[in-house]
């Protein structure tokens, strides 16, 4: 099928008055919620999941896409105007953006973030439209054995995020898979881990897990450590940019897009690594390296573009394979499933209206973001002053409302509190949330594919092996064994830009985690391990970056 023809039809779907209205509503809600401190896009989508019960699936997903993009953008406003960074993807933006704002250049920082997000989002959505049908066509041939291998790769990749503790990632994955096991086994009809509780027989609703982990967990964790001092919000006028700001921003936007998209498309743990990579790249290429650390506009333009491009890149595996690479994409996958639609390679054939309407609405949402956000910036800035007692009370209120409305069952509210407590514990002990939510959502699918594959081979484990799955298993082995492989490789194989990005990443973590309880020093072995992971994708990464890299001297 011709991608452009389908895209035009997609615009036909997206531009109906209802869908357009919900796209705009999603962008507005997403930005507002993204600006609110403590609420990221994943929590926003989780809290709004119950609303979809009253909506048509295409409309609901169009709204979610708006929330996804809007939330990404809203987060950058928070990190520029508040003196403390929020979610991991906007940590880098806070480094330079907040410095710019303090130097009286908040308007320019917001403008380069908004326009950069628009440019990156548009190019990346175009890449998504061109690439996704091809990937889906290739993927439609895969057997259950291959699908299981790809899911196993997703599990391993999200737990092995650069610069973080693998063992804690695996712990989180195990917890998620366990939650996914609860309920009646579809193949044998037997109850697993239900302990005779009838409410658990159908399994724990993914809506309850998502709201519990992201909303209740976050509210409880923040409440336990609430900053009682008034926040320091930097006032801002209408965003604008001078000619020199433009000329310093456009190349970082393009480079950021080229870095962000491929990183978003592979399941490697979200937007944090590519944004740091973009930051380091800009620092190296800048004509004003001395400004870095004191508010360099390139340091906002690049990472913000990267952030949005990786958000669009993340939709490639989501729409073509049914595999989410970010927490937000995971929650969107749960939304798709709740309509009884099986995500996977066949989605492009079975639900063309849904897929292309969604892609078209991403273009519309992106343009709407630009139009809304430039004039509305002062309004968003005012949201940052919301009293924290109301903010977190409101999160708990809407979390309970959403979880109850999903099944009209009081049991779910107690479950929500238990999962919220689990989410709080995970935040306290540095267990990442992404592997857990991916485990909950993909775990049952992975088990089904595995059992189907073994059913075909009549129990012979050899049935899991075919040419494609072998390739995937080799990649998994490389990811797992990289710390060892790394030591054997010559020093030359290290990619300096990546090494530096990892270093910056660790510094940022060390800085933000610097409490009396958590000191910053790492032992040598650990650094070596993380440095090793850095060299993992040198060739592909470089090749992917090339198209967006303007030729020298242009």
């Amino acid at each position, binding site marked *: 099928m011709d991608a452009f023809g389908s895209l035009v039809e997609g615009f036909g779907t997206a531009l109906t008055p209802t869908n357009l209205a919900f796209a705009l509503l999603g962008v507005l809600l997403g930005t507002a919620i993204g600006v609110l*401190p*403590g609420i990221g896009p994943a929590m926003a989508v989780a809290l709004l999941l119950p609303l979809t*019960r*009253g909506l048509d699936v295409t409309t609901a997903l169009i709204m979610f896409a708006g929330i996804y993009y809007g939330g990404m953008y809203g987060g950058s406003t928070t990190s520029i105007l*508040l003196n*403390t960074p929020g*979610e991991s993807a906007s940590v880098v933006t806070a480094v330079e953006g907040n410095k710019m704002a303090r130097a009286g250049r908040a308007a320019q920082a917001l403008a380069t973030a908004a326009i950069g997000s628009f440019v990156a989002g548009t190019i990346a959505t175009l890449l998504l439209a061109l690439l996704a049908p091809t990937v889906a066509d290739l993927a439609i041939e895969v057997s259950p054995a291959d699908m299981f291998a790809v899911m196993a790769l997703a599990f391993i990749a999200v737990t092995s995020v650069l610069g973080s*503790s693998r*063992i*804690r990632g695996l*712990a989180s994955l*195990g917890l998620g898979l*366990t939650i996914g096991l609860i309920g009646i086994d579809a*193949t*044998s*009809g*037997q109850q*697993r881990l239900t302990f005779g509780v009838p409410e658990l027989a159908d399994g724990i609703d993914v809506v309850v897990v998502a709201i519990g982990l992201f909303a209740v967990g976050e509210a*409880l964790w*923040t*409440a*336990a*450590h*609430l*900053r*009682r001092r008034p926040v320091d919000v930097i006032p801002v006028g209408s965003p604008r940019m001078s000619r020199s700001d433009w000329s310093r921003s456009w190349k970082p936007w393009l480079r950021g897009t080229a870095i962000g998209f491929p990183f978003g498309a592979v399941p490697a743990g979200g937007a944090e690594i590519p944004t740091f990579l973009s930051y380091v790249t800009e620092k190296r290429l800048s004509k004003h390296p001395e400004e870095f650390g004191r508010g360099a506009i390139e340091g906002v333009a690049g990472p913000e573009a990267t952030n949005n491009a990786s958000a669009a890149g993340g939709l490639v595996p989501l729409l073509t394979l049914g595999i989410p690479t970010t927490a937000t994409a995971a929650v969107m996958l749960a939304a798709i499933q709740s309509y009884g639609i099986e995500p996977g390679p066949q989605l492009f054939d079975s639900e063309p209206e849904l897929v292309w309407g969604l892609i078209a609405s991403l273009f519309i949402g992106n343009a709407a973001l630009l139009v809304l956000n430039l004039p509305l910036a002062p309004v968003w800035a005012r949201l940052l002053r919301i*009293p*924290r007692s*109301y903010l*977190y*009370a*409101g999160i*708990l*209120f*809407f979390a*309970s409302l959403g979880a*109850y409305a999903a099944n*009209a069952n*009081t049991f779910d*509210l107690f479950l929500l*509190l238990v999962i919220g407590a689990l989410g*709080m514990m995970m935040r*306290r*002990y*540095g267990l990442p949330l992404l592997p857990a939510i991916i485990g909950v959502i993909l*775990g049952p699918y992975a088990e089904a594919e595995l059992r*189907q594959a*073994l*059913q075909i081979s*009549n*129990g012979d484990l050899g049935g899991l092996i075919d040419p494609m799955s072998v390739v995937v298993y080799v990649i998994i082995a490389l990811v797992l064994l990289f710390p060892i492989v790394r030591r054997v490789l010559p020093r030359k194989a290290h990619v300096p830009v990546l090494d530096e990005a990892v270093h910056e990443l660790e510094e940022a*973590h060390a800085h933000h*985690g610097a*409490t*009396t*309880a*958590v000191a910053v*020093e*790492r*032992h040598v072995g650990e650094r070596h391990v993380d440095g090793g992971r850095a060299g993992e994708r040198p060739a592909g990464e470089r090749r992917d970056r090339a198209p967006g890299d303007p030729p020298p001297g242009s």
Partner: protein
Amino acid sequence: MTSAQDGPAQGQEQGRSEYGVALFLGAIGVLVVVSALLLPESRISRGPVGPAAVPVVVGGLLVVVAAFLAVDVARGGRGEPESGEDVELGAGSDWRTILLLAASFAANALLIESLGWVFSGAILFWGSAFALGSRHYVRDAVIAFALSIGSFYLFALGLGTVLPPGILRGIL
């Protein structure tokens, strides 16, 4: 995110609770494995792989992870608490706030079907705001009821989901 050499007292204190995480993971892992092995023989089971295979693997993973985590903690590794815009790490957890929040939350869960969402939701919001340090009792109550009544009608009229009306049945 790992590893630290802290002041001895603080480090030990933190370390002990980190072992608690390893213990928690290990206990869940054992529970998953044991309950899988206790599954009765299925009569309608299809295919060579039964319902116990995956739980055994997942439980096993948790047990192994718990062991590695304990080793990591013993070697000085520490989990990095999550930071955020409104989070101020450094002091210990504020358990009084947490307990008050949990109480408001449980009150809503217990009262939603008898009293109805309008009251139980308002109690949840008002109690949470109080727990988080708001002392504008009347203003909080007005906001709480505005939210609970507003959401009741939004769900009833906009989404066709009727939340429990409770004692206001017939009035709303």
